């Protein structure tokens, strides 16, 4: 049996059962395009009237967006009444497909799941072929909300009496995920509040520092933190109530008194060298044996993947990736040297304790390591007992409080009372952390901005801060630092647009490499260096050279057509369009600096004008 139903058969079945129009969600753009290709070979042909209707709608849309007229897919769509809709297409083409769906001229649309969140056009039937989606390289199960968003497209109000969500299996489907998602409650949403540099600058511009804590307290993030606090507080109340029967005794703080006594008694107990105690060498190293750390072994070297305690003996153990790629579980004492070198290691909770991708990378790194590595000097602490207070030792014999009336009660209650008190303290600490975490993060940002000179010591905006707060986009720190480093001194519009494009583009789909000019290469090199130096404070952008070069061509060569540009790269048209739209957005932020940086703003303005032509002009 085939692993999944053939697209042509799928549409035929839907047609036969009167389940069209349908949206068919596929895993990738490629799958959508391949599904369309399989139709090109098929013999299916629509009846004439429907073909004419499609043609009519397309002509209408073409009036608004002339670029569609030449679209290579038009014939196929007209002949078979099926289209693909995904982010690789130009927005104008997507609008055309949406319009066709809205007028009911198409029988089916192959779409990627990104559609579910974006534009909304309904259908009678939705076909789901997957239970997970690709999110940042990895596949994650669809959430109930996402599944309901997908299924929600089924059933057009006023046009359908019922809607259908049809599941058809493909190799990577997990039916349970889908049935649970269809029948379950959508997930609760959680605040994703992050404090960005422009936010700090803008808040400090409008409000004195003292007021800001109260503004942050108005965020949904704080609201949800407070909800968690409330839960902790009820627990805390419970614990306090549990403390009550132990009530005040003769001494005001009998628990602490007993704690001292308890510790002293334990300390005084003769204690032989315990077998479980690891040697001081190993104990000192343990802190450094973190995932990703390169260590020297008796023979060869390895990378730590996890540290754990063996069952039973509780001996310190490590999982090692050794040269040659084998994974070993060994006692921690096997490590002879700890090197001053760690690699990123994305941990997982099950064997092999890191993601397959990490494992692959680490194996690679391990082979590439230079023969000599700096060794971390590790100080070993010898266990040394702090001498006890002599007064306690003296009284230990008949401690505590021999004459105290509550002695017996204290002795009886101490273990529980001290445990409850520890719990109370832990809860209080977490409550405090929850209440102040946002403010702390804000303070951290202030510190960084102060160090770079956007704020003065009293957290007021400096001259640089005044204009820097107008840059309210991702990677704002990199952009403002570039401006301050005069990297854009008297920059040409093409170069400026190119650099902005490389900062703005955050997609890692591969593209081919049109060559940039020498000026661009040098400039990008500088930008990359600066971005790396800012890495502790701001995640560096991808700074892809190919998208920079592509943008440079488009701006510099005014005779270049969109088709000509598309020939230079393997990027999808939709991706190119998004790249340019985002670049224009970044450039228009630079345009707002016209008072402080007139030549830069002027250059940005000219770059925008130069970019807006052809497809980019016609489209909203």
């Amino acid at each position, binding site marked *: 049996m085939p692993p999944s139903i053939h697209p042509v058969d799928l549409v035929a079945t839907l047609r036969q059962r009167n389940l069209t129009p349908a949206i068919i969600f596929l895993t990738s753009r490629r799958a959508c395009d391949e599904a369309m290709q399989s139709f090109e070979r098929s013999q299916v042909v629509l009846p004439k009237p429907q073909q004419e209707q499609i043609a009519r709608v397309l002509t209408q849309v073409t009036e608004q967006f002339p670029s569609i007229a030449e679209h290579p897919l038009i014939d196929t769509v007209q002949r078979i009444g099926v289209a693909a809709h995904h982010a690789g297409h130009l927005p104008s083409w997507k609008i055309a497909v949406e319009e066709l769906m809205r007028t009911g001229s198409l029988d089916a649309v192959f779409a990627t799941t990104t559609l579910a969140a974006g534009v909304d056009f309904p259908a009678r039937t939705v076909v789901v072929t997957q239970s997970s989606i690709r999110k940042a390289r990895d596949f994650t199960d669809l959430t109930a*909300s996402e599944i309901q968003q997908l299924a929600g497209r089924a059933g057009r109000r006023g046009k359908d*009496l*019922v*809607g259908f969500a049809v599941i058809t*299996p493909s190799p990577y489907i997990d039916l*349970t995920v889908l049935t649970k998602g269809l029948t*379950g409650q959508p997930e609760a949403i959680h605040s*994703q509040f992050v404090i960005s540099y422009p936010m700090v600058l803008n808040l400090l511009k409008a409000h004195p520092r003292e007021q800001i804590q109260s503004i942050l307290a*108005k965020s949904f993030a704080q*609201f949800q933190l407070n909800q968690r606090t409330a839960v902790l507080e009820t627990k805390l109340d419970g614990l306090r109530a549990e403390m009550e029967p132990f009530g005040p005794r003769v001494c005001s703080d009998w628990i602490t008194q007993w704690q001292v006594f308890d510790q002293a008694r334990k300390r005084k107990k003769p204690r032989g060298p315990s077998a479980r105690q690891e040697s001081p060498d190993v104990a000192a190293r343990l802190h450094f044996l973190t995932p990703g750390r390169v260590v020297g072994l008796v023979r060869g070297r390895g990378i730590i993947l996890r540290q754990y305690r063996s069952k039973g003996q509780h001996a310190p153990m490590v999982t090692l990736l050794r040269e040659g790629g084998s994974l070993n579980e060994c006692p921690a004492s096997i490590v002879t040297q700890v090197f001053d070198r760690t690699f990123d290691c994305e941990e997982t909770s099950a064997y092999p304790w890191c993601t397959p991708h990490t494992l692959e990378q680490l194996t690679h790194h391990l082979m590439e390591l230079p023969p000599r590595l700096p060794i971390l000097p590790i100080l070993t602490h010898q266990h040394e007992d702090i001498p006890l207070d002599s007064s306690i030792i003296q009284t230990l014999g008949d401690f505590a409080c021999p004459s105290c009336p509550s002695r017996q009660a204290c002795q009886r209650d101490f273990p529980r009372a001290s445990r409850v008190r520890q719990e109370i303290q832990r809860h209080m600490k977490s409550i405090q952390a929850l209440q102040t975490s946002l403010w702390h993060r804000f303070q951290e940002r202030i510190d960084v901005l102060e160090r770079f000179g956007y704020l003065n010591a009293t957290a007021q905006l400096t001259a640089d801060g005044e204009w820097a707060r107008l840059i309210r986009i991702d990677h704002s720190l990199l952009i403002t630092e570039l401006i301050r480093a005069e990297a854009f001194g008297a920059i040409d519009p093409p170069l400026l647009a190119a650099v902005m494009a490389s900062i703005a583009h955050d997609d890692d789909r591969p593209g081919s490499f049109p060559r940039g000019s020498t000026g661009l290469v040098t400039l990008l090199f500088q930008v990359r260096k600066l971005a790396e130096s800012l890495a502790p404070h701001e995640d560096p952008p991808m700074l892809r050279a190919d998208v920079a070069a592509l943008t440079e061509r488009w701006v510099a060569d005014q005779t270049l057509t969109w088709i000509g540009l598309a020939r230079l790269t393997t990027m999808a048209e939709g991706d190119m369009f998004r790249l340019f739209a985002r670049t224009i957005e970044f450039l228009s932020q630079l345009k707002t600096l016209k008072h402080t940086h007139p030549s830069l703003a002027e250059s940005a303005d000219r770059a925008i004008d130069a970019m807006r032509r052809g497809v980019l002009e016609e489209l909203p």
Partner: protein
Amino acid sequence: MTTKELEQVLLQQPVSLLHRLARGRISRHFRSGKRKLVDLLIQASVENRPGLESDLAALIEEQSHRHQTAPPVETGAKPKTHPRPAASPAAPRPHKAEEHGHHEPPVSLHEWLSGIGVPQAQPFVPDAWQVDALARLAETDVVVSVPTGSGKTYVAIEATRRAMQDNRTVIYTSPLKALSNTKFTEFSRLFGPGQVGILTGDRREHAQAPLLIMTTEILRNLLYDAAGGEIDVRLDTLGLVIMDESQYLADPERGVVWEETLIFCPSQARLLLLSASIGNPQDIADWLTAIRPTPCALIRHTKRSVPLRAGYLHPNEKLTPLFRTAGIPYGQPHLLHPEAKRLFTEYEEDTGPSRSR
């Protein structure tokens, strides 16, 4: 057998076998998907690898034996004898086995497919929740959380119309430029082209119109500019802010923009948040009530305006209902249609070997 080989072998087995293998080894194993189950099994086998391997071998043997002697599975949907119970999402489920399903014969394909068609054209009557939302909006801020396709746009349009009649400015934000553009076209058609403006990162038209459509980022920037004291934006005449797709509040990258916008939104403007179904809309309403002078009402319902049915289409083009009931049995994912269940198990067994990622 090395761990790698064991993993390969496990991955080739049908899920049902893995669950049997997991019995007694892993607690709550029925909650995990196949991949997770294999990982857990390998993890659990650290202690007793030979035991796992021998059990696995026995199960595989048993299965292949059963395959040879298995009787032909019955096919075809059973005829319908009883009317199915109305599936109500809020129904309590104390005796689920008796109430739904196992005594009740599963829905037939014919019944499941019946009722396809176009409803008769009726004069448009707004739903009760739509009327309610609009009434509440006269007094308070409103959060609307309803399933996709329930008619949130109607509420937005009516609210806009009423605000514009009072000569108040309306701002409509959406998360995506594409959506902004669609809305711009749609609203221009409704209210007349001069009445609608659009502001996005790279487009600016009719910026002085009484109804402005923008992306949320632009509104956030306007509010910051206003707070910094440099621009006019007619914030004092701003009467209504509509935020479409407010579930973006939880977007990892952009969610913060929605929060900033809501925190700084002028207090005299009414807020109308339109969101798809989410789990905790009450939290959002409570939050807005806490930070804004006007209280915030929540309009929420989970019933779809067009009923939804779920089906299963096998690669051999055989279509069956997915659940025993025609509608979706909310809260009871285990009520699978026996036919769908059988076909899917068959599918998993057939495609098993190719299912290693």
